[in-house]
């Protein structure tokens, strides 16, 4: 019973995801206006020959800040896991 359900779930997922290759066409994006703006103005606005750089550090610089914060968060989390714990700090019901 469970196996049938799992198979059905995967079937629906596969069918749903197959919409992507059927409706999107690779190498031929439907709209390009935002990126055209970047390509045209990125060099002058962000003083970078590499437009990806200008996008990462200027147009979408706030995302990059967020990304570094994610890294910092994860490092803090790992440090929290491997900290030296005090005696008797942990608690378990039952």
């Amino acid at each position, binding site marked *: 019973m469970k196996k049938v359900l*799992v198979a059905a779930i995967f079937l629906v997922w*596969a069918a749903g995801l*197959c919409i992507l*290759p059927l409706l*999107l066409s*690779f190498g*031929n994006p439907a709209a390009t206006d935002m990126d055209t703006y970047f390509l045209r103005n990125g060099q002058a606005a962000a003083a970078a020959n590499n437009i990806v750089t200008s996008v990462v550090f200027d147009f979408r610089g706030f995302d990059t800040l967020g*990304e570094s914060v994610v890294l910092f968060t*994860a490092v803090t989390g790992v440090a929290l896991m491997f900290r030296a714990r005090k005696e008797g700090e942990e608690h378990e019901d039952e």
Partner: protein
Amino acid sequence: MVFFNLPYVAVVVLTLIGLATIVLKRNLIKIFLGITILESAVNLFLVSLGYREGGIAPIYTNAPEGLMVLPTPQALTLTSIVIGVATTALLLSFAIIIWKKYGSIEIGFLRRLKE
């Protein structure tokens, strides 16, 4: 038609592999590998969205200018990769603690919290 969309087909296949790994494997590390595969699938999807037929890398050089591929997906993918690394690091550190405390990283032992 579908043949030219091969990257998207790869995305679908990778996604399904990732999900199947998460759902069918019973070892925590393998489940985390499944998540990583899923991340790769999403990254591949993002990066292939930006490709334009015959486009060159979006860098201005002395070479003659041509059609450039879209830069935004590459930027998004960079962010997404770093987030993926952070996620994996935290998950693996959880797995180490579980290994120390429970003595196993099989999913069947991870059932002290239920009902």
